[in-house]
């Protein structure tokens, strides 16, 4: 046990050291800002813990808390399980597999993992400690009620470790990783969907009525904390904690023995799909080297995890997030949003794509960037190829959004499709122009298999965001023209003007981007050779 403690302290101290080094590397200002943010963040949770310790010390606390306690514990459970999964998915945790070469036994590594999780995600343990202290001080409750939040905390820590191992392994599988990230993203749309409905769906109500809720861990923990329900909540809490322990132990062992190379071998043994074959079309349309470059871009982007996620989000998540507003309340008129749903979703999809398709087009294939200067290809051809690939994917996205709208029986007419096409053309030309400038002036090295991190440099993304009102002004003017003249023709005439202005901007930006590539190629290549993010 002494050896476990010794190893645990060394590993915890090392993890802490890595975080410090990581933040220090980003400069003094960033380090101070991170410290300040951490102080506010953990200070906030410490405040909640103090509040819980004081509130639950009062004799009437349990009556006053009422149903709020199980709900609060449910949210604590959600945060507890969700936050480490997010951290693991972006690679922000020490990989215990790296410790396999050292003399640390598997069971000790498991205990170390639990310790690490408690120390690194200490927000909820802090709150539970506050709750336990409050219950202990409460004169109307027996002292053992304070054990309930502690047991609930143990259950959460152990379950979280198991889930993290399971998800970590699933993330190693190429398609499953994308599906999981996509699932998490879709989950984010659920509150907006429920909120816009104004009421909980009857099916969910039925489900919540019929579930033995008192046996759920958060409800059981609340009952045990408030000395209600006799022995039942304690048994429920004990059983789920035991099951969580067994689940976690099993998952931990499986993860330690998981062979990522075998998984990669299985992933790479698949042959080329139909999509891969279809993406060879540029060879029939463009002459080389443009054709070869466009084909390479299409193949590369279609195999990039991050691109696939945002592309799929455009015609799924994008639709879901706006659908409730478009449909409005039951029986109500669809309104402006309902009538212009297709255009709104297309615009949103373009905004989602902008990070990966426009703003940092050299970032994903940074190893290829040097090649562009070594082979006899003009920089203008390279940039054009990237832009043509972007146009192709935007057209595909608009088509898929249109099909999805038809499936959902949203208003889709030829006029609406024309509107959406014009709006997306204006926006795409502006984004291509801005992206060409940004991709050549502020390139940033990226890991293409990483699903979540920002693609473009933060400052550039912020600047581009500020430009959105300007980009969208021709679109707004076209809608204004339709309103003022009362005809659809006015809209299309105004949009034609918008497309002309956007095309002029694109042309100027392309010229400028090519000049930058010629002039600042050393700086450009240096920026692209810098690694994107730390690998813990």
């Amino acid at each position, binding site marked *: 046990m002494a050896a476990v403690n010794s190893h645990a302290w060394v590993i915890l101290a090392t993890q802490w050291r890595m975080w410090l080094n990581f933040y220090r590397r980003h400069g003094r200002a960033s380090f101070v800002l991170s410290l300040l943010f951490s102080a506010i963040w953990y200070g906030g949770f410490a405040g909640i813990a103090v509040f819980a310790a004081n509130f639950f010390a009062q004799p009437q606390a349990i009556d006053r808390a009422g149903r709020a306690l199980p709900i609060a514990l449910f949210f604590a459970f959600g945060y507890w399980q969700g936050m480490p999964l997010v951290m693991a998915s972006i690679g922000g945790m020490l990989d215990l597999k*790296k410790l396999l*070469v050292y003399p640390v036994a598997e069971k000790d590594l498991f205990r170390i993992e639990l310790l690490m999780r408690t120390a690194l995600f200490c927000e909820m343990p802090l709150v539970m400690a506050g709750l336990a202290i409050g219950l202990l001080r409460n004169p109307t409750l027996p002292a053992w009620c304070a054990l309930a939040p502690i047991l609930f905390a143990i259950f959460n820590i152990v379950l979280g470790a198991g889930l993290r191992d399971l998800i970590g392994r699933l993330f190693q599988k190429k398609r499953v990783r994308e599906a999981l990230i996509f699932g998490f993203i879709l989950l984010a749309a659920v509150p907006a969907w429920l909120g816009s409905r104004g009421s909980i769906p009857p099916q969910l109500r039925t489900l919540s009525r019929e579930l033995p809720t008192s046996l759920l861990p958060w409800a059981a923990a609340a009952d045990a904390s408030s000395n209600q329900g006799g022995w039942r909540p304690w048994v429920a809490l004990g059983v789920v904690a035991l099951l969580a322990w067994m689940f976690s132990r099993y998952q931990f062992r499986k993860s330690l023995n998981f062979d990522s190379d075998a998984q990669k071998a299985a992933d790479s043994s698949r042959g080329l799909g139909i999509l891969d074959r279809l993406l060879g079309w540029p060879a029939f349309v463009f002459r080389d080297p443009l054709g070869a470059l466009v084909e390479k871009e299409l193949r590369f982007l279609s195999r990039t995890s991050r691109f696939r996620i945002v592309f799929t989000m455009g015609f799924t998540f994008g639709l879901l997030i706006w659908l409730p507003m478009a449909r409005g309340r039951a029986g109500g008129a669809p309104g402006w949003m309902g009538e212009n749903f297709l255009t709104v979703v297309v615009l949103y999809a373009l905004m989602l794509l902008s990070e990966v398709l426009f703003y940092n087009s050299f970032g994903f294939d940074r190893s290829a960037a040097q090649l562009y200067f070594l082979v006899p290809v003009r920089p203008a051809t390279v940039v054009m190829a990237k832009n043509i690939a972007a146009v192709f994917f935007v057209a595909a996205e608009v088509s898929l959004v249109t099909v999805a709208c038809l499936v959902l029986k949203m208003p889709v007419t030829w006029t609406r499709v024309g509107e959406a096409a014009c709006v997306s053309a204006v926006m795409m030309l502006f984004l291509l122009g801005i992206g060409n400038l940004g991709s050549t002036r502020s390139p940033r090295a990226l890991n293409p298999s990483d699903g979540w991190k920002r693609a473009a440099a933060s400052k550039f993304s912020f600047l581009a965001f500020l430009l959105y009102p300007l980009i969208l002004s021709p679109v707004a003017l076209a809608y204004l023209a339709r309103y003022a003249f009362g005809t659809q023709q006015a809209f299309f005439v105004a949009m034609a003007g918008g497309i002309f202005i956007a095309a002029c901007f694109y042309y100027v930006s392309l010229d400028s981007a090519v000049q930058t590539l010629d002039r600042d190629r050393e700086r450009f290549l240096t920026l692209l050779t810098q690694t994107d993010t*730390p690998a813990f």
Partner: protein
Amino acid sequence: MEMDPTHSALPVEDSVEIPTDAAIRLTELTKVYGTKAAVNGLSLTVPKGSFFGFLGPNGAGKTTTIKMMMGLAPPTSGEIEMLGHKLPDGSMEVRRRIGVVPDDTLLFDQLTGQEFVEFAGRMYGMERDAARDRARELLKLFELDAAPRKLIAEYSKGMRKRAAMAASLIHRPQLFLMDEPFEGVDAVGARLMKEILLDLVRHGATIFLTSHVLEVVERLCDRVAIIHEGRIVAEGLPHELRTGSETLEDLFVRMVGGARPADNLEWLL
């Protein structure tokens, strides 16, 4: 720690026999990825105190074999015995007594060289102060002490290999498993590393290294094995394996297939 430039390998007597107490014994070791056997029924014995070179072309199964020996990849079948302990049962005892230079994915990028080597020492059960002192000395020895605040993430490939080697030495192990230790290391760094390794073997340590740099293996190793498509195709003393004036490179090419596919490309030649 002067190295004789004419030195081609450790002094090897003609009648060297495999000692009964082998440092490493692999029996029918197999590792299958999907439908492909990366290592296929490999059997090998590495005598104690030897400098063993494990050669093979890219994708031959060298790294897979060494990863199984390090306990990083479970074998599909077969047995691994190191320092008298069978894996996985005796893995804790083995880990205490071996030093590993793995591929660089096992380094902690967000630590400095000093922090990483010290961390390794403490993981092997050393006192903090002792680990710190030894880490400092090792970094100096491997000439990594010039930029103490530099993170491993910012190291060049050669520096990463030297840091890994420094970490593998900190607990004075008896057996070293090294995966391509000279990859990306410059000539000066490689010379330094070779001198240290030769000294270790002279003092009784056993070294098992994989490499595709034949010149290095020829100069350092007293025993070699060549793996090709997951199977051992040659094993023994270098001078016994070579025929006539054949070099190790000639032997290697002969064993793993040295056809010249470019002969078929008339447009190229």
